[in-house]
């Protein structure tokens, strides 16, 4: 009996630590941004760099006030969602709920499931064909699904031991220095967020995942979060990983969890 009580107390302590990790990580994360960008309100971080720089903000608002360059692509994504029968898959049948649910840790496969990985799986089931992971159809469909959840808050849940391990791996990837420039994701988007790197202002990591897939002027099109990860890796002179690989899915799990509580937005234009 004594052993049972000790085990139960030990287990509850472990579970407590596990759930506290994400909350305390995010608290420290948000506090850091409050310190370096004191004028930016928490909700504003969903606007990324446009929450930081007034000049860019004006341009951003002008683009949003007109017809955003991605509007047609997102509409097309909605048509494709129906055309390819993605509404027939349970995981995507309710698009708004699908956006909120993903990424999540699937206990059966012991893997993080992202929205794009769910779309790929469903697309393959419905059409018998493979779907890419970075741009084009998947970005359009994912953007349309995300649009259905505008105003809802990101809520990544990290509860089980497996989920916690995936989260920890994602966190390590985020903070690890890599590539010839010996840089981490955090070097630009946490410690130096709001500062300039050449002509560009570095965006804060807090809120990064509220507007994905994003439209980048540089790409002249929509792209998924994993496409952006690949670009960041290249900039650090590290070899990019394939989109939707386990390491990137774990990274997304951590990255999205840090934006818990922020509203999903359809303002997906970025420079």
């Amino acid at each position, binding site marked *: 009996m004594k052993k049972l009580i000790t085990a139960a107390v030990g287990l509850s302590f472990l579970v407590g630590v596990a759930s506290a990790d994400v909350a305390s990580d995010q608290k420290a994360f948000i506090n850091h941004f409050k310190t370096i960008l004191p004028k930016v309100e928490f909700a504003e971080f969903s606007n990324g760099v446009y929450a930081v720089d007034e000049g860019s903000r004006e341009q951003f608002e002008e683009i949003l006030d007109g017809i955003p360059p991605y509007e047609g692509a997102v509409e097309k994504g909605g048509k494709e969602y129906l055309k390819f029968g993605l509404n027939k898959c349970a995981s995507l049948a309710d698009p708004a709920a699908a956006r909120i649910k993903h990424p999540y840790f699937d206990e059966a496969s012991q893997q993080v499931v992202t929205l794009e990985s769910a779309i790929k799986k469903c697309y393959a089931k419905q059409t018998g064909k493979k779907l890419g992971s970075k741009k084009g159809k998947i970005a359009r469909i994912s953007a349309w699904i995300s649009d259905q959840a505008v105003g809802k808050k990101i809520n990544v849940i990290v509860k089980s031991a497996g989920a916690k391990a995936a989260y920890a791996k994602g966190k*390590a990837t985020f903070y*690890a220095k890599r590539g010839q420039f010996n840089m981490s994701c955090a070097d630009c988007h946490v410690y130096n967020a709001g500062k300039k790197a050449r002509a560009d202002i570095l965006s804060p990591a807090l809120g990064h995942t509220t507007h994905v897939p994003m439209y980048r002027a540089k790409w002249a099109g929509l792209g998924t979060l994993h496409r952006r990860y690949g670009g960041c890796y290249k900039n650090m002179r590290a070899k990019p990983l394939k989109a939707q690989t386990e390491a990137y899915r774990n990274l997304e799990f951590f990255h999205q969890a840090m934006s818990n509580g922020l509203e999903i937005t359809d303002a997906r234009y970025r420079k």
Partner: protein
Amino acid sequence: MKKILIIALSVFALSVQADSFKSAIKAAETGYKANLAVNMAWRDTGKMIKQAKKLYAAGKTDAAMALAHKAHTQTVNATKQTALAKNAGPLF
């Protein structure tokens, strides 16, 4: 006799160069493979290895050797990063 000696020395020198290139490129390839396995490879290492092989095939041995060594150095540095990455975390 003199000619034979020169030819023999040249052949010997060429075989030494070939051996040292082979070992340099093998070291680079081994390191790169290990870096890839842990998702910590550098962007240009693979290209350097390919380019070094091309240069060597074109008879540009010195340039090939230099590039093979450079690629190997990249893999050594990537391995050092891998060790540090295990304890990576926020600085605040």
